[in-house]
C-alpha cells in the first residue's frame, strides 16, 4: 500500500503495510533520527512526535491511521544552526546525559507549551509523567522547559 503523509511540513509518499507503526516509517523511510525505538509498547515515550498537534507514541500508531494529520518530529522544531527555544534551553541547561530520551522530553514539552505557555513546575512534571529518563537528568529537564517557557513564542 502507498500512503501520503505530511511530516515537518513536507508531503511524502511511503509504501508500507497499513499496520506498520509510524515510528519505522519516520526512521527508515524518511531517515529521521529524532523519534527513537524504546519499548514498542507505548510505555517509555522515546518515540514521541506530534500527530495532528497531539503528543503521540509513534511506536503504537499504525501508518493507515494517520490519514491527513500533520506530523511534527524533533527535526521539525529546529536545526543544529537554528535550534528551537526548547532545544536551545536543553543545550544551555545540559539537560541530557545519553540523550536517548531527549526526543520524547522535548516533544512532550512542545505539546505542553502549545497548550499552556507558562506552566508551573508541577504542570511540567505532570506533562512528563509518562516519559522515562534513566540517566537521572530529570531536574535539568524541568529547569530547561521552565527557561524555554520564558522565551518569546516562535
Amino acid at each position, binding site marked *: 500500500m502507498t500512503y501520503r503523509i505530511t511530516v515537518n511540513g513536507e508531503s511524502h509518499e511511503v509504501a508500507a503495510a497499513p499496520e506498520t507503526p509510524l515510528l519505522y516509517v519516520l526512521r527508515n523511510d524518511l531517515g529521521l533520527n529524532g523519534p527513537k525505538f524504546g519499548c514498542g509498547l507505548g510505555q*517509555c515515550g522515546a518515540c514521541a512526535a506530534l500527530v495532528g498537534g497531539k503528543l503521540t507514541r509513534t511506536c503504537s500508531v499504525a501508518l493507515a491511521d494517520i490519514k491527513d494529520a500533520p506530523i511534527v518530529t524533533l*527535526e521539525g522544531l529546529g536545526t543544529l544552526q537554528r535550534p528551537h527555544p526548547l532545544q536551545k534551553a536543553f543545550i544551555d541547561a545540559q539537560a541530557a546525559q545519553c540523550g536517548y530520551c531527549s526526543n520524547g522530553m522535548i516533544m512532550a514539552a512542545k505539546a505542553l507549551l502549545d497548550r499552556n505557555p507558562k506552566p508551573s513546575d508541577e504542570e511540567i512534571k505532570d506533562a512528563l509523567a509518562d516519559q522515562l529518563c534513566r540517566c*537521572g537528568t530529570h531536574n535539568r529537564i524541568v529547569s530547561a522547559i521552565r527557561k524555554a517557557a520564558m522565551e518569546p513564542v516562535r
Partner: protein
Amino acid sequence: MSVARLSRRHVTQSLGVVLATFALPSPLAFGQAPANVPFSLRNNRKLEGWIRLEADGTVMVFTGKAELGQGILTALAQIAAEELDVGFDKIRMVSADTSRGPDEQYTFGSQSVEQGGGAIRAAGAEARGILVAAAARRFGVRAEELKVSNGTVVAADGRRATFWELANEGAGLLKGDIALAAAPKKPGDYAIVGKSVNRIDLPGKLTGAPSYVQDIRLPGMVFARVVRPPRYGARLLACDEAAVRARPGVVAVISDGNFLAVAAGREEQAIAARDALAASAHWSDDAVELPDMASLRTELQKLRAETIVVGTAGQSEPVPAQARRMSAEYSRAYLSHAAIGPSCAVAWLKDGRMTVWSHTQGAFPLRGDLAKVLGMQNGEVDVVHVPGAGCYGHNGADDVALDAALVARAVPGAPVKLQWMRDDEFAWAPFGPGMAMKVEAALGSDGRIVDWSYDVWSNSHAMRPGQAGGVNLLAAWDLKTPFVKSPAPHIPQPFGDGDRNAVPSYELPRKEIRNHLLLDAPVRNGSFRTLGSHGNIFAIESFMDELAEAAGSDPLAFRLAHLRDPRAQAVLRVAADKAGWAPGRKGDGQRGRGLAFCRYKSIGMYAAVVVDVEVDRKTGVIKVLRVVMAADIGLVVNPDGAKNQLEGGIVQAVSLALKEQVTFDRRQITSRDWSGYSVLTFSEVPNIDIVLVQRSDPPLGAGEGSLPPTSAALANAFAHATGRRLRELPMTPERVKATLS
C-alpha cells in the same frame, strides 16, 4: 561454612584467570609521579596514535575510551586543547575504534579521566613541545623565548607560525614513541580544564542529527531481530523456518543450536517475522532453578562459594571482654541496566572482513571474543564504538554485537542492523547481581568500634567479554557448537568485585572482611554501576547508624570519630553544614533525615550525602524530599559535567533503593517490560544540591561514586523517620508497610 584463606596467587590459579586480561591498573597507577608512564600510554606509545594535525586546521585526537552519555569525549577534548594550547573548537575526537585508535581496553570504573586523560595530557604536552622546538629551529631562537596561543607559536620579534605550518616541515615530526620529554602544564596554569563547557555531542543529539548506532544507515542494509529461549536452560526442539522464510520481506532465518534470528528488508517485517518465528518455536522444558525471591538473602548464602579474606587487621589482639556485640544482615535485589533504548549493533561482512558498530564499553576485548566465535583472525574483525542509549555498565551491547555479526555472516555483503526488543533487554542482558551482607561489630566502653566482622555474598560482577578461558557473549553459549563462559576473574582490593567497598574506610583496630564469590550463577550477572559498592555501602552505612544509636552518638560525630582522612572528614562536614544537620534531632514518625559517607573504591572520589524523606505510613510510599551531597573528585575537568554525573547517580540511587528489582519465579525472569521494572519518574525525583569541595590533582573519577552513599543515606533517613529499619533493598511500599505494622 569454612573460610579458606587463599593467597591471591592460589585463587588466581584456581579460577584459571590471567589477571592481565582484565587490564586493571595497579594501585600505584593512582596518584602517580610525573615520571611514571600514564596507564593508557603503556601499550600505546606512538604519538601519532593519539594526536594528528589535520589539513583543515583541526586536531584529531584518538581515544580508546567511549562516550557512554557521561560526557567523556568533551572532558578529553578539554584536556587535549589545554595541553596543546589550541582552541577547544579545533579538537575532533575519535573514540574507541579498533581500526584506528589506541587500545584502552574498557571504559569503566570511573577511570577515563585518570587513564585516558592522563595519556592525552602527556601526548598533548609532547606534541606541543615538539612543535615549539621546530619553531625555535625555524626562527633561530631558544624555545623558552616562544609563546603559544591558539595553535600559533609567536616569537618575541613578532614572527609566527601555526602548528599546522610547522608540522608540514617534516612528515615524521609528530611520529614515534612518546618520550615524556615535555612536562604537562601545572593545574594552576589551566585555562580550559576546570571550566564548565557544553558537551560537544549534545547539540546533534538534541536536534536529531545521526548520533547513535541506531541511526546508522548503510546502502542495502537489512534489519534483524533475535528470538531468545523462554528461559535460561531451555533448548530449541523445533521451529518452522520455511514458513517464516516465506513471510514478506524476509531475507534470512538463522537457526544454530538455540540461537534463532531473522533478517528482513524492512524493520517492521523483521519484527513481525520474529513474532512468527517465536510462535513456531518449540522449546524443551529445561530450566535453571532460580532463587526464591521472597528469601533472596538466605538463598544467596546457600550457593557454592569461594571465600576470600579481603581485609584484615588486629586479629591477633583479643576483643575487650566488656565490648557490646551487635549484628545485622542486609540484602540487595538483582538490578537491570534498564537503558531507555534496547541494545543495538550494525554488522557488515564484506570482502572477508567483519566490521561491527557497537555501543560496547570495550571495543578491543569485544573484537577478540567476536573473532573467536566467528572463527576469524582479530585482524579481520573491527569494532567501532558508536553511542547507544545510556550505559551504566555491562548491558546487552556486546551480546547484540555478536547477534548482528552472526546474522551478517548469513547475508554476506549486506549490512545488518539488529536491535533487541524491550523484552530481550529486560530478560537477557546481564544484571547487577543480588547481594547478601552480614555485619557484626563490637562497641567499646568509650563508644568506639573495637571489632568489625563483615561478609558479603554475591556472584561475580565482572563477566565481560575479553577474559581468558572462554567467551562471554550470550549467543556464543547457545550455538550448536557452544563456547564456554569465561570464569570470573579475581579483582583484587581496593577495586574489588562483589567486595568493592566491602572494606570500610573507617579506622577499625580489629577487623576481618570476607568476600564469598558465589560460583553457581542461576541468574545471569554482570557489571552494574559501582559493582558491589552499592550493596556494601548500604550495609556498612546502615550499620554505622545502628552502632551510633547504640553508642548514644550522633551519626555525624560517630563517623567523624572513626575517620582520620581529612578529605573524608571535609565532605561530611560540608554536606552536614549545607543540609543544616542538627545533632540529636528526632524523626517524627513521618519525616526523617539520614547521612552516609563513601570513598568510592577506597581510592576514588569522596562523597557524603544527607537525604530527607517523608514516609506515608498508610501507602508505604517513601518520598525523597531533598538530597545534599558534598563530593571531592580531585581534579575537576568540567565542573558542570561532573555535577551532571553526580546528579544522575543520585537519582539512579534513589530509584534503586525505592523501586528497582528484577523479578523472577523459580523458572524464569518475569520483569520483561516497564510495567514489571519501575524506575523513578519526574514527580518522585528530589531536589538535589551538590557541592564540589576540593579541586586538586589527581582526578579521582566522578562517574559512579555518588550512588552508594545515596541509597544508604535514604535507608538511614527512613530509620530516622520511623524508628524502624529496612535492611532489604528495594524499600518497596509492601516492605515499608510490613515494617511499620
